């Protein structure tokens, strides 16, 4: 069933929307959650929580690209769950490395008085991504949105692990420069 047909089921409040969504995008959402949570049990729970969101949001919301919309919901739920898990001293893994790498994009001279609005930062990130080559952009998003490992990126791009790290490092440096130019850090 195509996405528009599934979204139509939500609009019609047909419960089949849930089964169709789970059948088509269950794997996608599980992968998104599992890269962040590194726990099958937690990821499955996270994915189950995900299904509630389209049911509550559609209508009136009209996702432009349904799988991307679901990915975002799942990621946010996984991050929330991870933060709870960190409070309980468990979970993590790849995501800790991802966060450390992102810290490199923020130079030490950050003005503590400069409070960056979340929307402003998001828009800047999207503008930055628009300037990357498509494969570099995919790799960046795969790493810093989906928390893909270097090994996974290597397997998917055909790059060596070393090259994947190098490409990502260059992208981070570009992001750092860009954020500085934009006055965001």
């Amino acid at each position, binding site marked *: 069933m195509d996405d528009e047909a599934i979204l139509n089921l939500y609009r019609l409040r047909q419960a089949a929307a*849930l089964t169709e969504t789970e059948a088509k995008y269950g794997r996608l959402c599980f992968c998104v959650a599992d890269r962040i949570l590194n726990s099958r049990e937690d990821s499955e729970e996270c994915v189950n929580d995900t299904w509630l969101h389209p049911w509550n949001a559609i209508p009136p919301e009209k996702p432009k690209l349904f799988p991307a919309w679901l990915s975002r919901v799942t990621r946010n739920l996984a991050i929330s769950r991870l933060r709870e898990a960190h409070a309980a001293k468990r979970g993590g893994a790849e995501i800790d490395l991802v966060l450390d790498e992102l810290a490199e994009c923020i130079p030490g001279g950050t003005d503590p008085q400069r409070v960056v609005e979340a929307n402003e930062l998001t828009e800047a990130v999207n503008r930055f991504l628009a300037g990357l080559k498509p494969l570099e952009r995919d790799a960046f998003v795969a790493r810093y949105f989906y928390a893909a490992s270097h090994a996974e990126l290597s397997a998917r791009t055909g790059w060596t692990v070393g090259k994947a790290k190098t490409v990502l490092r260059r992208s981070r440096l570009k992001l750092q420069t860009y954020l500085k130019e934009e006055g965001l850090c």
Partner: protein
Amino acid sequence: MLNRNSLFDAMSGISDDYLASAAVLLGDMKEDNLMHLDSSRKQARARKAGRILLIAAVLVCLFTVTAFAAGLFSISTRVPDAKETFQIHWDDSENGYLEWSDAKLVLTFPAVAESREIEFRPGWLPFELPEELPGSSPWNGISEDTWFRRFASESLCWAENAGRYPEEYKEIGQPILIETYSMAQFHDGGAMLMLYQTPENITEEHWDELGVDVLSFHGKQHFDERDIPEMDLHIDAYDIEYDYVLLSNEEKGWIIEVCGQLGMDTVRKVAENLEIRETGNTLTQADFQNKYLFIDGGVG
């Protein structure tokens, strides 16, 4: 203050297009799920992949094709044992394929090396062709003179179009779907599989007027009732039912599938009134993005 967490959180607002593209790279999502590809890629995919979004080429065929020895009918069917497995190409798996069992029907075609590429236009439909529909750009700009390689009408059922089409369309997912396939896709001995829908009332005919062998059947998929405790929701058991008419021209090497949820009489009438023409192109297995040794012939 900007810190690594705020930057990480900002990633949640990355554009849908970028998210989808990266998900495809990671193999979490099939490229066919992208709705905003440029037109040339869309056309290429439409030509090569049709609507086969889920399952495509096969690495190994676990059964032998013997059905054409008699040479009487160009489509052969058999109901496989539930335990019989088919190794279906699947990029995302470790081995590059998945093993599928419990297929409901196997349809095999002559192993022709070349197929004539065809297109069609419906001579009769149970609804008027819309000039324009809200939220349905594929319909825009088409007319009775438009030729298709694939024709889908699920958008007639969408809520935005309520009142424009019969009330019964609200309750279904696909009024009429027409797709073209090539026998060259199955050149290495593959088959079309019905993975989900159990076939009933399989009949074989020959239509002289179109010069085609015709296989018809009714397909049904049952869903058990279930509870979703998290949502305090109960879903009653339900069936999804389609009728299928497959037109097969062995000499030219093409297949047309007509199916839908408006009943067999309507599906047959659509099929009988198809106008079919060749594009002048010849297709071999190499022309297809995936080597469709097994494909899901059902509506999914």
